[in-house]
């Protein structure tokens, strides 16, 4: 019961808000959304503890069942999704972007969360695909309607690009799923593990190629990543957080659940290529970050680099590699959410965060936001003791000893390049810290166009529930207060906890990961 409610509550609540909440004022809509997200989070905790299973007949003609369940791989992601859901709805209490009614905004946020929860709990491949696709529509609404208000052209382009890219990826994935279901004769993920592994190698390879390519768009793996920077740049803060913390996670989760678990020999044949693509992504993304001018784009490219480590861990085919990938996945969700809250707030008040210009020092004008930025950057560069370290370190370590011993030369080369790419992360993180945290002595009375930009940006008409920041401080007061500071504190705490106590999560994942690889090999 808790499981069905967990999935249906945000979906139905979001749908009700989108469909019938047009007349709701912003404070009411955001409070309803936050309450729904809070209950969803409590349900997620209950589900994580009790691990219920739901298995009902749904489409008997097609043999599709409404089969939901959780295991150690899904539980951390479910908790992350529910937590991020709470944070984005709380964040919406302080900031509802222009572009539509507040209820549509909050409803879209809840729909994304509900769709992601359904994806992570689905135990039927058709149900998985439906949930996976469900998320795209509210996400498109968030980018297209609620995106950066003073670049309508760029907003349309980012929306189109998001839809076209992900639709192409989904189509490939759908063909792969249909091929798998028709060859193996089942849609249940549990039964497909044996039936898929028994398929001939050629068929497995075809299915794995389709599934991996389709899901690689969502991760994103180099060279299918160019939708991410434009979507991140345009999306509102909450949308960026959802993109980074939930949508990308669905891609890697899909890679683990579908090709890796269901067609193991096909996936193993693709693994070296996937590892190479991942490592090219690491170096490529990090290099672009060294010269990128827009801060939001920079964080998007750093996501490409971090997901490269995740893909590298997946492709090793070992328990250690898979754990590294899942841990890196989780850590990236928390870190990038933290960074996007920091940067989204800056962008909203300053109009843009162009790194070619000099900005006032955050450590002086906004010490709390500055601290959150430094924490996020330190975690992103993989500092030991923070969340980002374990995923990257363990992924490189796992690549040194891949499951397939004939591939050792490839994987060791790739591991060395990945480690060098990790060093580049330090370079770009310190670049951002130098430009924003250390900053320049820009006179606060001399906004150099900042004030104009802010006037143009600030869309907070009547619907804005945020009362403390309007009027007096204008755009130059960028300190994180109220709900924004709450969100930053929660994410910062999660970053430190994941860094100091990795075994909390690794212990939960371990049995499921071992079973997954043991059952497949």
């Amino acid at each position, binding site marked *: 019961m808790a499981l069905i409610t967990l999935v249906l509550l945000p979906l139905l609540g979001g749908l009700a808000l989108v469909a019938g909440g047009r007349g709701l004022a912003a404070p009411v809509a955001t409070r309803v959304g936050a309450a729904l997200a809070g209950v969803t989070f409590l349900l997620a905790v209950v589900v994580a503890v009790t691990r219920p299973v739901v298995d009902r007949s749904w489409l008997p003609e097609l043999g599709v069942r409404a089969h939901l369940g959780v295991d150690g791989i899904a539980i951390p992601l479910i908790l992350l999704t529910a937590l991020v859901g709470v944070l984005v709805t709380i964040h919406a209490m302080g900031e509802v972007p222009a572009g539509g009614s507040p209820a549509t905004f909050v409803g879209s946020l809840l729909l994304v969360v509900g769709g992601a929860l359904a994806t992570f709990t689905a135990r039927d491949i058709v149900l998985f695909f439906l949930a996976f696709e469900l998320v795209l529509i509210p996400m498109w609404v968030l980018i297209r309607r609620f995106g950066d208000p003073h670049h309508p052209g760029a907003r349309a382009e980012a929306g189109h*690009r998001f839809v*076209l890219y992900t639709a192409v990826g989904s189509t490939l994935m759908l063909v792969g799923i249909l091929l798998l279901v028709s060859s193996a004769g089942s849609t249940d993920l549990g039964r497909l593990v044996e039936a898929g592994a028994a398929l001939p190698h050629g068929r497995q390879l075809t299915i794995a190629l389709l599934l991996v390519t389709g899901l690689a768009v969502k991760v994103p793996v180099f060279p299918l990543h*160019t939708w991410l920077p434009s979507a991140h740049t345009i999306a509102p803060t909450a949308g960026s957080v959802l993109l980074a913390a939930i949508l990308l996670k669905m891609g890697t989760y899909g890679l683990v659940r579908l090709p890796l678990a269901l067609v193991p020999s096909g996936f193993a044949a693709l693994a070296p290529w996937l590892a190479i693509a991942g490592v090219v992504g690491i170096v*490529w993304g990090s*290099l*672009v970050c060294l*010269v990128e001018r827009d801060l939001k784009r920079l964080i998007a490219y750093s996501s490409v680099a971090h997901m490269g480590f995740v893909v590298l861990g997946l492709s090793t085919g070992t328990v250690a590699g898979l754990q590294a990938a899942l841990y890196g996945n989780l850590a990236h969700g928390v870190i990038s959410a933290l960074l996007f809250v920091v940067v989204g707030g800056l962008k909203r008040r300053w109009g843009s965060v162009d790194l070619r210009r000099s900005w006032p020092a955050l450590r002086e004008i906004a010490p709390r936001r500055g601290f959150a930025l430094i924490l996020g950057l330190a975690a992103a560069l993989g500092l030991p003791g923070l969340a980002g370290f374990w995923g990257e370190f363990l992924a490189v370590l796992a690549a040194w000893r891949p499951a397939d011993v004939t591939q050792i030369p490839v994987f060791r080369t790739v591991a060395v390049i990945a480690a060098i790419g990790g060093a580049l992360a330090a370079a770009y993180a310190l670049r951002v810290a130098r430009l924003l945290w250390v900053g320049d002595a820009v006179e606060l009375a001399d906004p150099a166009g900042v004030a104009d930009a802010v006037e143009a940006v600030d869309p907070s008409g009547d619907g804005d529930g945020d009362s403390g920041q309007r009027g007096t401080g204008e755009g130059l007061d960028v300190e994180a207060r109220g709900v924004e500071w709450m969100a930053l504190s929660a994410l910062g705490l999660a970053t430190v906890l994941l860094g100091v106590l990795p075994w909390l999560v690794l212990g939960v994942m371990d049995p499921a990961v071992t079973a997954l690889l043991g059952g497949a090999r």
Partner: protein
Amino acid sequence: MGLIGTIFGSPAATTAAACARSAAALGGSRPPALFPPCAAVAALPAARRARRAEHLDPHGRGNANAVLLVLAVLSLVGGLALVLELFDLPGLSWTWTVITVLLIAVGAGLAFALGRAGDPGVRFVGRRAALWDSGFGADTAYRALVRPVERLARVVAFLDTEVIDGYVRGGAVAARLAGLAGERFHRRERVRLGPWLVVAGLIIVLAVGVLGWR
């Protein structure tokens, strides 16, 4: 010793390095007169001498002592953690302990001997002061390493937006052109063509059905 040993051991090594540096820069136990008039330093022009002093110890002696104090406390914590077995460490290796103690004794003796015979910094570094001041060319090495990486990064960023994304934009343009072409075709078509197209489709479907019948 593993990872934890390295973590607890590193303050000791850092302390030693910092001690050596401040002994060389500040001249042992001498009072705050930073650089006593000895041959090598006195030969420098006054402006450069001042710059050197500023560069080596911008905040005066107290700062260096504070740094040493912090490092010494950290070393003590590391030592205590080892002795009190706070962590699951494999115990002391006697060889390494003896070597470490000997190193400390030799270092302290050297520092004492050099300090008695004048400014240890000048005696130790001698004519190679310029090399030490420039940090053994670390800045030059940094520039030599960073410039090509930056150039590469610019090339990569260009390739990303112009080539990889170019394919994507090309795909979008192709899709739009196909849509426009379809629209024009529909606008130009004659109405009477419609039924014939339906008939043609019917024939194709029938043919596929008959030929594909098994």
